[in-house]
């Protein structure tokens, strides 16, 4: 056995890529779990095709899982890949450009036959034509080794070949000195009742691990020390799970039963899956016949006094638009989660984007403002869901919660919150008449709270408060149908004012990096990690740069203007064609520049650094 050199790394990025049927998402999430156990900080980027099983071996069927981990603060899924595990030529072709020069490429050489090359649209094998020059290539006979290892089992050829990702997982775990036990535990649990499959998977996982140990091909093995995360109890969490937990927490703390109405849509279905499991918490999930029925059901549930939530993606929000307007004029509390994907129309269903901000802000008929809240990391989805729920109920309004699609299945280590520290979530249903009129006690459904301008929430079943609400303009106070033009103008302004007043309770906006300086980066959503990583790098180079990240997009924090004015220029990086930048320019007469990426992937911190330096040097020069 060759003596291995141990090399210590502060961070690394690994990318598993193969066919949709190769189990790359599973390999990636198991590697993530092991990495979490190794106490590294991490960020992931699952990347899969829209087709469930695209034709095997083709480039459009390639599924990938990227993971960035380290002993340092990890803010992004990684700019450049250090290790690419490519299960076939298509996976190699699609992903090689993401690997840094000098990076390692593990290829399954058994998958480079003529037929495989044809499927990937390659004339010559990239193993032979010099494509891989400058990379450290490790050819592994993954298919052959897998078949050999399982030759004596009762599994058929197809089942055997399907297991080769376990070999790759074992090998990768060894290469980065990750514990193998979490994956073993998972296999034992997952295949508890399928002895032959369980044994085969365990055997292959260990084979892969030992292969690294024995083969001459790896001279080096890496170690990544635990990250210095704040003390506490952690778990790895995906955005979709964090959203579900956030809503359950909101339900528990408010005492409102949780009702979730949804129609299956990528990438929001995982939220429906999660919540439908929480029957123990009394969560009512309703899989509707369409997007409109999904939000309709939640409007009904909100009228009845539930914490009502619907989740979807951009095309679904488009269908829900009219109903959002109804909830808005009825002034019922409701949370609409938009797990954004590439658009317009069906767009890029499995790719991430931030292009539904203007839809959230303005996408309704009439003057129809609603609060807009955004989550910035997978774990942050928990707090964002809680905050959206709290605002909806406090201000009696639908709230849009924007989540960049890749946060839904991306994961990170999450310090499990202490439920005692969650913000208060008081709810008071109106049970008595709220007004005296001609000596009689009456209930006025549109008599507003003087502070918040919220109207009272009186639910069916409350005697004496019977009232009717609807989509026709309301008379102020009574809520009766009113076509009076002056009343309409007043109600329109009151509805806007109510949303604006949320700004009064927003905490001061924290500025990351310099408090004042040459350039301020303003972001929202999933770009937080890239932006703040870029700020760190820029400041390390002596640049006077800061960043703010907006949780609340409507209303904007009251002190935002003040922060903007402390910088020479403002840059708004977004994964769209320029949306927040328009909202800011509309509000502030300041030099505000867009920086946009619309490629269905997150920013690399390096791209932001380069862009900001370009501006600064252009100015300096």
């Amino acid at each position, binding site marked *: 056995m060759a003596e291995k050199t141990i090399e210590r790394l502060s961070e690394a990025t690994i990318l598993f890529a193969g066919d949709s049927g190769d189990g790359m998402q599973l390999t990636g999430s198991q590697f993530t779990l092991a990495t*979490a*156990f190794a*106490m590294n900080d991490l960020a992931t980027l699952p990347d899969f095709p829209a087709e469930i099983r695209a034709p095997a071996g083709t480039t459009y069927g390639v599924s990938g899982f990227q993971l960035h981990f380290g002993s340092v603060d990890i803010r992004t899924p990684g700019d450049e890949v250090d290790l690419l595990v490519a299960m076939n030529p298509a996976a190699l072709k699609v992903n090689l450009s993401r690997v840094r020069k000098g990076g390692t490429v593990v290829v399954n050489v058994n998958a480079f036959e003529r037929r495989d090359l044809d499927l990937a649209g390659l004339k010559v094998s990239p193993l032979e034509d010099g494509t891989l020059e400058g990379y450290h290539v490790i050819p592994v006979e993954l298919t052959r080794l897998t078949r050999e290892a399982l030759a004596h089992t009762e599994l058929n050829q197809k089942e055997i070949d399907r297991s080769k990702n376990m070999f790759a997982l074992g090998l990768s775990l060894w290469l980065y000195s990750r514990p193998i036990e979490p994956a073993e535990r998972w296999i034992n649990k997952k295949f508890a009742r399928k002895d032959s499959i369980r044994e085969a998977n365990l055997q292959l996982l260990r084979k892969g691990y030992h292969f690294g140990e024995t083969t001459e091909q790896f001279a080096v093995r890496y170690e990544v020390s*635990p990250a210095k*995360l*704040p*003390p*506490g109890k952690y*778990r*790895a969490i995906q955005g979709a799970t964090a959203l579900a*937990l956030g809503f*359950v927490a909101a339900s*528990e703390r408010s005492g409102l*039963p949780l009702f979730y*109405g949804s129609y299956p849509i990528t990438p929001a279905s995982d939220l429906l899956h999660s919540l439908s499991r*929480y*029957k*123990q*918490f*009394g*969560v*009512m999930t*309703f899989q509707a016949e369409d997007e*409109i*029925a*999904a939000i*309709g*059901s939640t409007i*009904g*549930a*909100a*009228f*009845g006094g539930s914490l009502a939530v619907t989740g979807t993606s951009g095309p679904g929000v488009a269908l829900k638009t009219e*109903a959002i307007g*109804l909830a808005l004029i*009825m002034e019922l509390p409701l949370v609409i989660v938009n797990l954004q994907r590439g658009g317009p129309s069906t767009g890029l269903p499995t790719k991430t984007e931030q292009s539904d901000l203007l839809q959230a802000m303005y996408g309704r008929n009439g003057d129809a403002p609603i609060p807009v809240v955004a989550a910035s990391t997978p774990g942050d989805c928990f707090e964002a869901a809680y905050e959206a729920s709290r605002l909806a109920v406090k201000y009696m309004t639908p709230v849009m919660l924007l989540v960049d699609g890749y946060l839904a299945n991306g994961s990170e280590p999450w310090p*499990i919150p202490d*439920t005692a520290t969650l913000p208060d979530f008081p709810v008071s*249903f109106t*049970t*008595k*008449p709220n007004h005296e009129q001609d000596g*009689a*006690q*009456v*209930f006025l459904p549109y008599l507003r709270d003087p502070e918040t301008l919220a109207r009272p929430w009186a*639910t*069916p*079943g*409350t*005697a*004496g*408060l*019977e*009232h*009717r*609400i*609807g*989509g026709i303009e309301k008379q102020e106070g009574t809520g009766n*149908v009113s076509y009076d033009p002056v009343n309409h103008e007043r109600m329109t302004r009151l509805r806007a004012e109510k949303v604006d007043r949320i700004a009064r309770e927003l905490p001061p906006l924290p500025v990351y990096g310099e408090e004042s300086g040459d350039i301020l980066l303003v972001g929202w959503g999933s770009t937080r990690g890239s932006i703040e990583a870029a700020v760190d790098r820029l400041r390390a180079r002596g640049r006077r740069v800061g960043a703010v990240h907006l949780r609340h997009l409507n209303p904007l924090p009251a002190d935002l203007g003040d922060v903007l004015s402390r910088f020479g220029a403002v840059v708004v990086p977004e994964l769209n064609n320029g949306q927040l930048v328009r909202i800011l320019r509309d509000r502030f007469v300041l030099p505000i520049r867009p920086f946009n990426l619309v490629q269905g992937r997150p920013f690399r911190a390096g791209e932001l650094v380069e862009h900001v330096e370009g501006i600064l040097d252009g100015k300096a020069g």
Partner: protein
Amino acid sequence: MDSSSESPRKPTLPPGAKAPTMPPGAKAPTLPPGARPPAGPPKPGASGDGAGAVSRQDFASDQDVRWCPGCGDYAILATVQRLMPELGIPRENIVFISGIGCSSRFPYYMNTYGMHTIHGRAPTIATGLKASRPELDIWVVTGDGDGLSIGGNHMIHLMRRNVNLQVLLFNNQIYGLTKGQYSPTSEAGKITKSSPYGAIDHPFNPIALVLGADASFVGRSMDRDPKHMKEMLKRAHGHRGASFLEIYQNCNIFNDGAFFQYTEKDTKPERAIFIEHGKPLVYSGGTKGLRLEGFHLETVDLDGGAWSASDCLVYDETSYELASIVGRLFRRDDMPQPFGVFYAKERTTYEDALHAQIAEIRGKAGKGRLEDLLHAGDTWEVA
């Protein structure tokens, strides 16, 4: 076919639920495990006193009714308001939900809880409310455009899910509120503003449509026969499950007389037949009847001596097959149009199943604790 083997009058309850005691004929609201009981005791005050609501007037709101004078909607509103005290449901537990259209103004005129929503979507809103508050008594008021055109999808899904509420579909075979376009129930060839050369659409038969969607209660009545209408409303309310009641409603402005052949004194006996469970299908003052010949119905003369009432089909409202045959008697020149209960057979309701499942899981695994949920799965400690 209906999978339930229960007798039609016996409500199916979720495991563990107690049969509520209610006045006869009243729709029994149930409190599933964990449901919130109606809040607070009745409060004295001008706007209502729940417990004391006993007359028709108690169910009329203070809003001016704004339908065209002579509209059939008035008769339906009056009949519903008259029925309400008889049902014995506290006013605060009643919710009327509508979409858009002339008929959909209905909730504003009822002194109960109500929602006037958006076009076609009332069934979805009602489903969410009933699912989350099963003890409420919910009525959906809709029309042929609202319920069968823009909201057609929701209607069929409401029926198949069997949410326990009443759907009153006011069918006037026209778009009234938008001032007179042909609707999905307008007859082919109908001349309207949007079909100056005659409508080329083939119309729905609403009864056949909802039977196809596995509705558990299907009935038809008419605005000009308040007695029958009230009886049908009562039956619909007493049925535990989604009840679909089509009510022929005259729009005297845009489609006047669309149903006069069935509703007016001189032609009604010949053109309308009232079907009743356990009774032979006879009409025209007992001088004519309907006989089943194979899968077809034929009209027979009971005065000629050749046939008697005992030769006529004895209706069975629990038979899906009979409902399908009789429900398909539709706008036939040679046959009368049927009114009454076509089909009534109870099966598990959506909200009962929903809460039974929650209760079952909670029974097995206990009530969830947030702490446990947050700390679930693999966790690790950072010192």
